[in-house]
């Protein structure tokens, strides 16, 4: 059906764009040092998580 074909094409386009965006975002985030921020937070007791923060 024409309608569902167009819908599938739109979904396919969203998938491709979202995958590209995801890859670029991860690369940019790592480049600007976000992985180190995550590591720093995760290896210390997070007072907010445990309800004392």
């Amino acid at each position, binding site marked *: 059906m024409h309608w569902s074909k167009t819908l599938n094409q739109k979904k396919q386009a969203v998938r491709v764009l979202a995958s590209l965006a995801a890859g670029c975002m991860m690369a940019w985030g790592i480049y600007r040092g976000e*992985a180190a921020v995550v590591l720093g937070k995760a290896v210390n007791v997070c007072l907010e998580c445990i309800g004392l923060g």
Partner: protein
Amino acid sequence: MERRSTSAWNASDWGKLMRISQEIKRKIIQIAAFGYSNTYLQNFAGGQLYKGKWKQFCNPGMNCYSCPAARLSCPIGAMQAVSGAMNFNLSFYVTGFVLAVGVVFGRAVCGYICPFGLIQELLYKIPSPKRKLWKGFTYVKYVLLVFFVLLFPVMITNELGMGAPAYCEYICPVGTLEGGLPLLATHPELRKVIGALFSVKAVILVLTLIGCVVICRFFCKVMCPLGAIYGILNKVSIYHMEVDKEKCVSCGKCRGVCPMDVDPVNAPDSAECIRCGKCTVSCPKNVLSLKFRVELPKKSQ
């Protein structure tokens, strides 16, 4: 005594066997993912955290990074940690990761990988009166995602420009259960500083646990911001459900077995569907199937 015909016996038995084997396969994957996410069980004894390099990577599911056994970071906690940090307003790294996982698997992460999903399924096995959730409550998780995970850590900041992880601080019962209780049990110095905030979080935890015993995956349905993101991505994810509507006899069996109260025939891309496969093996007409969509561009003639 009348004997059932062999073919009828076989058909119903075959269906039952399919359901059991699908559920066993899913449980094995869930347990393996739970084990991989929580490798450092020995840390519970002393109440330390694992401090190795794996913690810079996120778990695809909810597993608190303040849990002594945790190997990976919680994506919701990590998202807030970065966006609340002095130099950043949004975590490209974590958002990109969640987007990538969600585009491929959608909420199948919830059905197969998420450690807290497994915990909730076990809680639901505790004998008690069971209830369905009013559908309106499923929208609460989107409100929590937008305000507590995305906006508050950026908007409510101290004089240094740093924001607190508001979802972790005021809501998350996963953190209280997996991080708070084991760390408070092993650290007397932490117990000394327990205040009103902990009481609030403890009440939320107790209500959540009761909710999970009475309502299947209560936290997933109502409170999980990660499930909200994967739910939105269910609409386009590569792993998806296909429905052959022409074969459907409207018996309602799929709807009846669904733990997430989804009608898969009419809403195969529902944001609530965790792709557990219970409906696919319950359908007597094989109307439903879960698969990765592979759409190769067709060559023009």
